[in-house]
């Protein structure tokens, strides 16, 4: 067993840190206030150089590995969880097409997704269906060589900006996945604002009213939209969110270390108060544990091991949980300052909570993990 980054992974990590520190971190609060992230940043981040690294280039070669991709997710999550959620859903569409897309879908869409020329979003959740994904109400009816989709999707990350949606619908009782372009007649996109966290994730509600698409838009086969296409997407999403949780927790630790070294109470720096040390120690330990779970999930993803599904759930569950704890403690350490938007920890706290809900709520992860244990 060898647990260390390769020189190539270390180099990539340094590059990601530099990019995020220069291009994202200084603007993350502004993104949050404006509830928007410029499309150029997303396009740059989805290129082969960054998030597009795990999609094949035009020659069909993969540029990178899942550990490097995880390192990128950690750095993005550290700066802006909203941006991470956009990169996550974009990746979910890419990975689903890479595994289950038709030749046409792979040849046409993957190069665009890998270059940031098209941004993808994943649409499973509905106004009345969250975790109970098998009972989605969106329908697809096949007739005369095409599918007509009707229904509503809600809380769709990047919905306001995406060029293409991977939508899960029931076709004659069979969960199925469809690719639908943003300007498809019958598809309306309604922005969602005023969220507690992920404020700049550009969430949207999608209304499908007699949206007609051809057979070439079906991803995978009828009946395999959730079990195979959806699971591929969600597994990728959980991997990204797990790393994002590590990123938020690390950002909370960094902010807390900085703050406690500068602020004095009772004539002593906060860092020398024992109850502060307890919170710092928990952050350090939990971050290390969560990062190791993510490395393990990344290794299994890289090797295509069947255990990757379970281990990725475990990593997502733990990392999002400790991110919320780290953010709670970071706000506590910062006191009233921590409740002010002058300090980033209040944003970390709002965003960390969302990680426990998206890509399968933590309660669903717990059920999966416990069932596996039995």
């Amino acid at each position, binding site marked *: 067993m060898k647990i260390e980054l390769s020189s190539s992974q270390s180099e990539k990590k340094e590059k990601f840190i530099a990019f995020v520190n220069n291009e994202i971190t200084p603007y993350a609060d502004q993104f949050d206030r404006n509830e928007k992230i410029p499309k150029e940043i997303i396009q740059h981040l989805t290129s082969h150089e960054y998030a597009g690294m795990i999609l094949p280039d035009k020659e069909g070669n993969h540029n990178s590995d899942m550990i490097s991709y995880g390192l990128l997710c950690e750095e993005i999550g550290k700066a802006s969880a909203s941006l991470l959620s956009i990169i996550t859903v974009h990746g979910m569409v890419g990975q689903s097409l890479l595994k289950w897309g038709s030749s046409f879908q792979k040849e046409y869409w993957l190069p665009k997704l890998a270059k940031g020329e098209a941004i993808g979003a994943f649409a499973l959740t509905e106004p009345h269906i969250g975790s109970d994904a*098998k009972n989605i109400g969106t329908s697809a009816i096949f007739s005369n060589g095409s599918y007509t989709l009707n229904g509503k999707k809600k809380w769709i990350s990047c919905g306001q900006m995406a060029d293409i949606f991977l939508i899960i619908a029931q076709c004659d009782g069979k969960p199925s996945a469809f690719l639908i372009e943003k300007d498809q007649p019958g598809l309306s996109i309604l922005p969602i604002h005023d969220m507690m966290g992920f404020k700049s994730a550009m969430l949207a509600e999608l209304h499908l009213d007699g949206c007609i698409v051809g057979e070439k838009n079906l991803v995978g086969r009828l*009946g395999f939209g*959730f079990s*195979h296409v959806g*699971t591929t997407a969600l597994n990728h999403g959980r991997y990204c969110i797990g790393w994002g949780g590590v990123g938020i927790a690390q950002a909370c630790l960094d902010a807390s270390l900085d703050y406690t070294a500068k602020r004095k109470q009772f004539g002593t720096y906060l860092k020398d108060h024992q109850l502060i040390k307890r919170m710092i120690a928990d952050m350090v330990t939990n971050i290390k544990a969560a990062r190791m779970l993510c490395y393990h999930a990344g290794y299994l993803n890289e090797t295509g091991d*069947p255990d990757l*599904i379970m281990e990725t759930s475990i990593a997502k569950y733990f990392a999002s949980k400790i991110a919320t704890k780290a953010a709670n403690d970071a706000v506590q350490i910062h006191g009233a300052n921590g409740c002010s938007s002058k300090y980033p920890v209040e944003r970390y706290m709002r965003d960390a909570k969302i990680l426990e809900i998206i890509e399968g709520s933590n309660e669903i992860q717990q059920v999966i993990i416990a069932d596996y244990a039995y």
Partner: protein
Amino acid sequence: MMKTDEIKEEIKKFLSKYIKKTDLEDDMELFTSRLINSLFAMQLVLYLEKQYKIKVENEDLDIKNFNTINLITAFVERKI
């Protein structure tokens, strides 16, 4: 070339990690009887790909390829 019985035994061994309460029979319906869930469906795909160095493609998504140990074995034999 692996023998059919060897493939079948390996698949049965893999399945038994996830189906602990039942004696697995070769023609027992796995998915249509809901003996295993949708999460397991992808684990099975990953197992077959890794163990037999095959690629499960879009066009392979057919319950007739995966619903029993016999069907999975036949699918693997066609692919390797």
